[in-house]
Structures are given as C-alpha cells and as structure tokens.
C-alpha cells in the first residue's frame, strides 16, 4: 500500500498543475478580463481566484503530492 501512496503522489502533482491551468485560463483570467470590460463582480472574483484561491489549491496539491512521493505518508 505504501508504494500505491507513493505513485499516486505523481498524480496529485499532475492534478495540481492541471487545476492551476484550469483555474487560471478557464476561470481566473476570463473573469478578470470580464472585469476589465466593466463587470465589477467578475473583476473581484477574478483577482481573488488568481491571487488567493489558485495558489491555495495548487500549492496544497503539489505539496501533498511531493510529500506522498517522498514517503511522508508511509504507514
């Protein structure tokens, strides 16, 4: 089971990168651009998405994946 946890770590890292790409290109930037066009609500959400939420989501998945790969979750 420890080896499964370790190899799954790679998936969490890839997932972190994918989540970052999706949240920036599909949510954060479009909202920000919509904000630049005059939609205040989208502007605020876009900024929060890009500066706060994306780093939390990506950072958590990448760090978790790294810990898994480096056997931190071995039991």
């Amino acid at each position, binding site marked *: *089971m420890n080896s*499964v*946890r370790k190899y*799954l770590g790679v998936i*969490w890292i890839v*997932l972190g990168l994918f989540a970052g790409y999706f949240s920036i290109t*599909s*949510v954060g930037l479009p909202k920000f651009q919509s904000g630049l066009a005059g939609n*205040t*609500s989208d*502007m*605020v*959400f876009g900024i*929060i998405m890009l500066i*706060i*939420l994306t780093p*939390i*989501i990506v950072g*958590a*998945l990448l*760090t*978790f994946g790294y*810990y*898994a790969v480096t056997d*931190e*979750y071995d*039991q």
Partner: protein
Amino acid sequence: MDSKEAKGIKSVIAASSVGTMIEWYDFYIFGSLAPIIATKFFPQDNPTAALLSTLATFAAGFVVRPFGALFFGRLGDIVGRKYTFMMTLLLMGGATFLIGCVPSYEQIGFLAPMIVLILRLLQGLALGGEYGGAATYVAEHSPDNERGFWTSWIQTTATLGLFVSLIVIMITKKSMDDVTFKDWGWRIPFWVSILMVGLSYVIRRKMHESPLFAKAKSEGKTSTNPIKESFGHRLNFKYVLLALLGATMGQGVIWYTGHYYAMNFLKTDCKVDSFMVEEIMTWAFVFGTPFFVVFGWLSDKIGRKRIMLAGMLIAIFSYFSIYKAMYNTATNINRTEIVEKSTSVDTKAADTKNPLDTIITTKIHKEYTDGTVFDETIKTTILADKTLKAPQPKKDASNKLPSDAYWKLIFLVFVQVLFVTMVYGPIAAFLVEMFPVKIRYTSMSLPYHIGNGVFGGLMPAVATYLTITAKGTGTTPLNPDWYLQGIWYPIIIAGVCFVIGLFYIDGSDNRIDD
C-alpha cells in the same frame, strides 16, 4: 460514563452548540437577505457600491474565514478554548446586530456600504474562529469511545443555523406586508441575533476551560507559536494537508451542494416559487438534521473514515440521478397545460428613470392538469434611441407545485442532506483526533475553513460557470442536459477527496490526550 459526567457533558454540548448555531444563523441571514441588503446598501448602478457588495460576498467567505481560523486558532492554543470562543460569539453577535442598525445608502451615502462591508468581514473573522473552538472544546470533554456522538451535536449547528435563519425570515415576512418587510422589516432577523447571543454568552460564561487544555497549560506544555508549529513543521503540516484534501474538501462541496446548490437550483434553474423552495429546504433540514447525531454515534462504532468516505461515494454516484429527478419534478416539461386557462397580457408604460423609453410588461399565467400554476413577468425595455443596444429583458418566473411534486422534492433534498450528515457528522471528532492538544485549535480550524470556505464557497461560481457554458446564449441549449453540468464540480472534488481519504487516512488512532 456515570450520570454526573453525562450531565456535565450535556451542559458543555448545550453551551457550545447554541453559541455555534447562533454564529451560523448570523452568517446565513446576511446571505439569505442579500437581495434586500443590496438594494439598501449596495445600489448596483453605482460602481463603487457594487464593488463593495462583491467584496462583502466573496471576501467574508474566501479570505476572512481562513484568516479568522488562524487568528483565533492561535489565540485558542495559547490563551484557551473557552475565552476564545466567547470572543468569537460576541464579535459575531455585535457585528450582526449592528448590520441591522446601519442607516441605508440613501440616508448616509457611501458610509453605509463601507460600514456593512467591515461588519460582514468581522462576521467572517468570527466564524473562522468559532467552529474550531467549539469542536475542540466539546471533543476534549468527551470520552474516547463517545466522541463522535457528542461532537456530532456541534455538527448539527451549521444546518440548524441555516434552518433557524429561514424560519425567522419566513415568520418576519408573514407578520408584515411585503413593502414593510423591504422597508425596515428585514432588519428584525439581525436584531433577533443580539437576544440569542446574550443568552448564549450567559450560558457559556459559566463553563470551565477544557480539561485537556487546562492540564497542558498547568504543566507548561502549551505552544508559544502554534501557527509555526502547525504549518512550519513538515511532521504536522502533512496532516493539515491530509485533513484538507482527504476530508474537508469533499465534505465542503457536499455540504454546499445539499444546502445552497439545491436551493439555488430549484429557484434559478427550475423557477420554483421562492417561498415554496424555502419551505422545501426547511422540511428537508427538519428530517435530515437528526442524522448528524446518528452518523456521529455510528462513527464511534465503525470508524469515522468509513462513514465519511461512504457518504462521499454515494453522493458522487447519485447526484446526477437526483438532480435529473429534481428537474423533471420541478419544471413543467412533463406536465399537460390547460390551454383555456392560460393568459398572456401586455402593458406599456414609460420608464420612470428615462421617460422617453418604454417598458413593456408581459404577464404570463399558465395552469396544468396536476394543479401546477406558473406565473412569469417579463419586462422588456424599448429604447427611444434606436442606435443604443437594448438591455436584456428582465424575467421573473415562479412555479407553484402541487402537493405530490412538493413532497417528492423534499425527499430529494432530504437525501442530499443525508449525504451531508454522513460526511459532516463525524468530521469534528475526526479532525480533533488528528492533531495534538497544544496546536489543535489552529491545526484543525484552517483545513476546515479552507475546505468549506474555499472549496465549498467556490461551488456557486464554478457550478454557474459550467451551467452557463453548457446552456450557451442561444434559444436552444448547447447541451440538452445543461442543468446537470454544475454538478460536475462537487463530483470531481469529492472524487479526488475520496481517493486521497481512502489511501492516505489511517483513522485508527482516536486518542486526543497527546
């Protein structure tokens, strides 16, 4: 546990749960009354006020809640659990009461939205600190083999808070006419808070400090820098990540789906009458809430991990069927219209803001063979200046359903609340058992509020994005199942959380005295 101990823990539960429920109530009434608050404090035709409104909506959930978890978590691990969650109670109660007292934008201008924004942020801060304190306080009073059962009472408070907020708002609405409610009656639910907070404060003041924390403090074993110890040391930080990605992330999206998404889905996508939706949610909460305690108790017998993961798995595989059934029940796609009772009446009037423009109001009334009554008002603005682009027509639809559809919807929402009780009922005990006494408040509060505030809080935005993308802008939806696409968000997040929980969480150690 003897009868004296049982009586003691019941007092602890009562004092903690009532206060936490009130804090959830305070937090939710702002959300439930958001449309009225917007008209009073945040006029949308003013860009600055609109910006403040958006900040009040997003910042309180996404930014301030986790910050409150850190701020009050640190305080709770240094000063003590009891004093910290007394502070959060007073902060929340005071902020809520004052929101109900702030003069409107028309009376004091920009000061009004500024004050409301600050008070809303204080609400978010207080909520971030409250839950971890209450859960830790109750858990540290509970015996190992009953911790899931006793802490599950704390878990009922979020749903009860929403439930009580809906009840108070409904009673207030019923007790006055619509104009009075929109004028000043909406303030009453905010004022009610101060009475409840006062009562809870008196009860909480009499409680003693948590025995485990008091012992650690007397032995000089408390932390001097809980934030650094929680998140700066890999040994503990890896469990913070595990709590977030293997438990609270999935729990957060399932909670939001069963509570807010279901409500918005019925109101927005299915156009069910707003008051009827609130009744449906209320009944589902009434029937569902006892199961928090049932699953909390069961988690003492068969383990927290099994129940939480089972809840996630069942939710993942049944959400599509549930929402399809809700759509088929709540909309009129399968109903037979009584054509002779249908009417459509147009009236024309000058726009009060721009008298040269014309507003055509179309009132549509339809009746169906099963007793469903559909009413829709469409306001179309015809601009005098034809070179300008006309705004989109404003539609306000309301579907009043017959009894069998009404009860079927209650059942379908109840099933979702049941999923919530499975993942949420045991989670306080689960989180408390992951972390040592000296950094428990800080370590468990942050993953809880990121899981709920960030992953759960993103639910409306991401689900709306997915739904709108699938629907498109044309008259024919791009995807015939457009209304189901928002559900992908909780399914994917809960799916990832399930796999992480399954492979990485051990869950066999339920001691908390370390």
